């Protein structure tokens, strides 16, 4: 069962967390990330890598963590310190790993079993294993970037074959499976990576995905609400469907929340929940086809055509139907086009798949018909392939 987790970055402030917590509680989003980056970075520009300051900040974090827990929000996962989040000069690797160990202890103290860590080389990742074992913590490494003059390039574990090799080597070293992978869409998008190929290569190692629309400078926007066409959702969704992903979906919103005025945030957060429901629905698009013994389509246009091109062979519909009387009796993509009335004669466990963008109107029509059949929506925006040429209705008519 996929778990949706909302990162607090952007709307729960470390200095005054209660307002963000309250806003989040107004939605169905009830789990978050114990993200030490909320506490670490404020002073780096002024004070440099001052470990004493960091430790003091992390001590203060306990109050915020308690406030979040007391508010009824659980921590599903923790996130270790990540250099460049925001960009604060060259990282000090030694300090970064020391802080990571501190973050691991905080995670364990708060009963969080999994933490994302951000080493920049294999040896650093390996150095975390003894503590992870001692604390019974599961580590997730992710695709990182490295900086070339302000330009993000693929960094540690960004190439999937390398990441899998690292994870296998780390688990071998640990003598148990304590390291997995989290795919972060921000670096993957910044580096234009084929996320379908990445997901396929990670296979069982992939335990979580940080989902966001991605801005040119790496800002994380609410999925489907950023510069939508700039994020390669198609390749991600294809990949997640290919591997039947059912891990953790972590949504990050810092770019969006920076744009939403604080007074509007309480009204906006339910949209976050809807957006994540939509993402989960897209990932699971094929599930109704696997669940029910037979299928009937509603709609005889492009969406029906794409259904037939992608699923027609594996899940052949009994027929399709359409409200346009002129089309009744026509053969379309090998299917007979029938009147909606024909749905009264199908078996009760046949799923009716609405293949038309007027989803809600058609669903209401079907409900009015008092049919007992399950009704599901189909969508052809992110198909496994696009071999069918779109129909030009003007030419047809």
């Amino acid at each position, binding site marked *: 069962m996929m778990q949706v987790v909302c990162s607090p970055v952007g709307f729960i402030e470390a200095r005054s967390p209660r307002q963000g917590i309250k806003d989040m509680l107004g939605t169905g989003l009830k789990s978050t990330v114990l993200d030490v980056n909320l506490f670490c970075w404020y002073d780096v520009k002024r004070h440099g890598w001052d470990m004493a300051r960091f430790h003091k900040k992390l001590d203060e974090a306990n109050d915020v963590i308690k406030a979040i827990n007391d508010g009824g929000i659980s921590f599903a996962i923790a996130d270790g310190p990540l250099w460049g989040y925001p960009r604060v000069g060259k990282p000090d690797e030694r300090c970064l790993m020391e802080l990571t160990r501190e973050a691991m202890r905080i995670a364990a103290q708060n009963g969080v079993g999994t933490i994302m860590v951000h080493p920049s080389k294999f040896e650093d990742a390996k150095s975390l294993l003894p503590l992870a074992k001692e604390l019974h913590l599961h580590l997730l490494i992710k695709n990182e970037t490295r900086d*070339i003059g302000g330009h993000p390039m693929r960094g540690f574990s960004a190439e999937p074959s390398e990441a899998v090799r690292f994870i296998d080597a780390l688990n071998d070293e640990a003598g148990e499976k304590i390291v997995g992978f989290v795919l972060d869409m921000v670096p993957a998008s910044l580096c234009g*990576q*084929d996320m379908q190929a990445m997901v396929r290569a990670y296979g069982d190692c992939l335990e979580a995905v940080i989902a966001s629309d991605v801005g040119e400078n790496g800002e994380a926007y609410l999925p489907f609400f950023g510069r939508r066409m700039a994020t390669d959702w198609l*390749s991600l969704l*294809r990949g997640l469907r290919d591997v039947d992903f059912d891990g953790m979906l972590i949504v990050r919103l810092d770019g969006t929340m920076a744009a939403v005025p604080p007074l509007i945030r309480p009204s906006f957060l339910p949209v976050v929940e809807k957006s994540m429901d939509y993402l989960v629905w897209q990932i699971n698009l094929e599930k109704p086809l696997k669940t029910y013994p037979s299928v009937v389509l509603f709609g005889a246009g492009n969406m029906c055509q794409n259904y037939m091109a992608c699923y027609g062979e594996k899940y052949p519909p009994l027929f399709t139907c359409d409200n346009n009387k002129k089309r009744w009796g026509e053969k379309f993509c090998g299917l007979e086009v029938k009147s909606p009335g024909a749905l009264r004669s199908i078996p009760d466990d046949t799923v009716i798949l609405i293949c038309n963008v007027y989803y809600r109107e058609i669903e209401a029509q079907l409900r009015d018909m008092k049919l007992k059949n399950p009704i599901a929506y189909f969508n052809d925006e992110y198909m496994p392939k696009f*071999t069918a040429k779109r129909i030009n209705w003007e030419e047809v008519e």
Partner: protein
Amino acid sequence: MLSIGTQTQYVVDDTSPEAGFRRLKNAGFDCVDFSLNTYLINTKIYKNEINDFFKKDIDELKAFFTPHKNGAAAAGIRIHQMHMPYPVYVPHGKKEINDFLYNVVAKKSMTICAFLGCRYIVVHGLKLREMLGSEEAEWAATEKFLDTICPMARELGITICIENIYGSVGQHIIEGPCCDAAKAAERIDRMNDKYGAEVLGFCFDTGHANLVGLDFERFIVTLGKRLKVLHMHDNDGRRDLHQLPFTFTRTRENSTTTDWQGFIKGMREIGFSGTLSFETAPVLRSFPVEMRDDALSFIARTGVYFRNKIEGEDI
């Protein structure tokens, strides 16, 4: 010693090709990347505007390019590599156009390549990932295309070079065909085994690699000896601008945004011994006419810098 080359586009014209080759020689180049793709340009192909150039029969094409061949020889320039017109297949394009590109333009390009004494021809893999559903399916289509020209490559002694290219989602650049070095290496080896000759190699395009954040050093080292030719140019990491190396910065420190150090290290490690070929023709459009020869000389001088570093100077 590594050779230094650049494109013929905007320098060598059809009316007096020898003069253009001499300009390149005087600027400091030893060889060229012959811009065959300019005779059927991609933007027109995508608009279904196919000119008649490749409809000439092969003897007419050889006659057309004879002055270029002789001009290069007279100027002391070697035609080291060329670019096949691209794309060779337009997704959902007209069948007659795709047939022409795939079966006529590609094969005639191979013949012209051999006629000009050119050892390497660069091709773009088919961009079909969105349509066919995966990179593997896309490569299968590219391999099917390569199978139509590899027998010619073996017969003519040409190596076809696949290139790392990019695609887009809206305005956003994403990796296109041949951006996975390990897969490319395996595929090149398999094709060469199949044909019993070095019919396939790789063209590493630095600008395209920069757009999709590839790790230059790792990519080059993974390819090793399969790396045959280069397209060297620079950009801002966001658009395929084909500008001079070291041109772009993003921070107040003004350090380059392209991993040229990684490039040099990788080239050193594999012992690259071919041509440092610049794909920087657009530079000649951005400089005023009066400065173009200076720009060419500077590009060649940049090549000398890379040659010195790759051949052993301290980095």
